[in-house]
């Protein structure tokens, strides 16, 4: 592997960008392709598949044997709202391999007693997100029901190209949210990316069941995400 390839790969990893290396097993030459960047036609399909599955493996081609390794940033869930659903999600998310952080400026909700073992930030999302910017491998879950708290992080998540943006609320609540976002200049394409009502439609009733529905929807969004057209990619 050329030193420049190693450096490019490490830079991508530290920037939390997904990358695939293609190594010629005979000559030892390597290339690195970042998610969202242009990838030459012969590799487009196998690179996209590796990015989606996260699985490394050997590709046999007419040009010889190549090894595709894949480096995905650890996915994380950022929850806006220290509510009952978040308590259940905080228990489930680590089981599925996600780091989880909760932001809620309402200090009565955001108490360590209610959220043992999860990172909890009792600040306004505007302030908290300045310290820890959203990215493509973050799922945003907005569940406060309060536009003052939810709207800003939803817009930020759409801008950052988060792989999942979900918002709690009935269809009526969501309709008024869509109206506010439209007024604020958010495009219809972006608005269409918001999963609301939040969670897969499995008839979930209790907070724990809703948390399961949300988590399943997050996994689906991660594993079926479009790896070719990237919004919010770092140049």
């Amino acid at each position: 592997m050329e030193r420049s390839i190693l450096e490019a790969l490490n830079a991508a990893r530290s920037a939390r960008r997904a990358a695939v290396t293609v190594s010629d097993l005979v000559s030892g030459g390597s290339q690195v392709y970042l998610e969202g960047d242009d990838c030459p036609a012969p590799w487009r399909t196998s690179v996209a598949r590796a990015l989606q599955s996260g699985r490394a493996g050997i590709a046999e081609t007419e040009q010889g044997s190549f090894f595709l390794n894949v480096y995905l940033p650890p996915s994380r869930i950022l929850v806006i709202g220290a509510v009952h659903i978040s308590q259940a999600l905080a228990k489930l998310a680590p089981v599925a391999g996600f780091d989880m952080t909760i932001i809620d400026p309402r200090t009565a909700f955001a108490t360590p007693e209610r959220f043992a073992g999860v990172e909890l930030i009792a600040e306004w999302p505007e302030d908290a997100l300045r310290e820890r910017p959203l990215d493509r491998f973050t799922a945003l879950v907005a569940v406060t029901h309060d536009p003052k708290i939810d709207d800003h992080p939803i817009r930020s998540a759409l801008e950052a190209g988060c792989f999942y943006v979900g918002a709690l609320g009935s269809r009526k609540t969501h309709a008024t949210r869509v109206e506010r976002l439209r007024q604020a200049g958010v495009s219809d394409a972006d608005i269409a990316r918001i999963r609301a009502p939040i969670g897969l439609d499995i008839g979930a009733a209790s907070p724990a069941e809703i948390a399961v529905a949300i988590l399943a929807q997050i996994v689906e969004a991660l594993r079926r995400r479009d790896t070719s057209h990237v919004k919010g990619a770092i140049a």
Partner: protein
Amino acid sequence: MLEAANVLDPLDIAEAWTKQGRKVAIATVIETWGSAPRPVGSHLVIDGDGNFQGSVSGGCVEGAVITEAADVIASGAPKILDFGVADETAWRVGLSCGGRIRVFVERIEG
């Protein structure tokens, strides 16, 4: 804790060692069969003096990989190494868990 983990990341180590002017090889698990302790894609980084970081086998074949890496560093020619229960060497190095692994060893160039 996250930063401590990053310090031990084999690819970060490989870059740091290269910057220090050390000769470096990277070993990568490219295929596994049966019960393999480290998944495909795992890395072990080795320098010209036999220092190493990371893992391709959970410890059982690393000694052999490190020895082969010295050749790769000297010659620049990449190698594919096979370890498995059917292989004499593998028994010697103790891959007794019943799996087989293939490891690609390459030098960092430039």
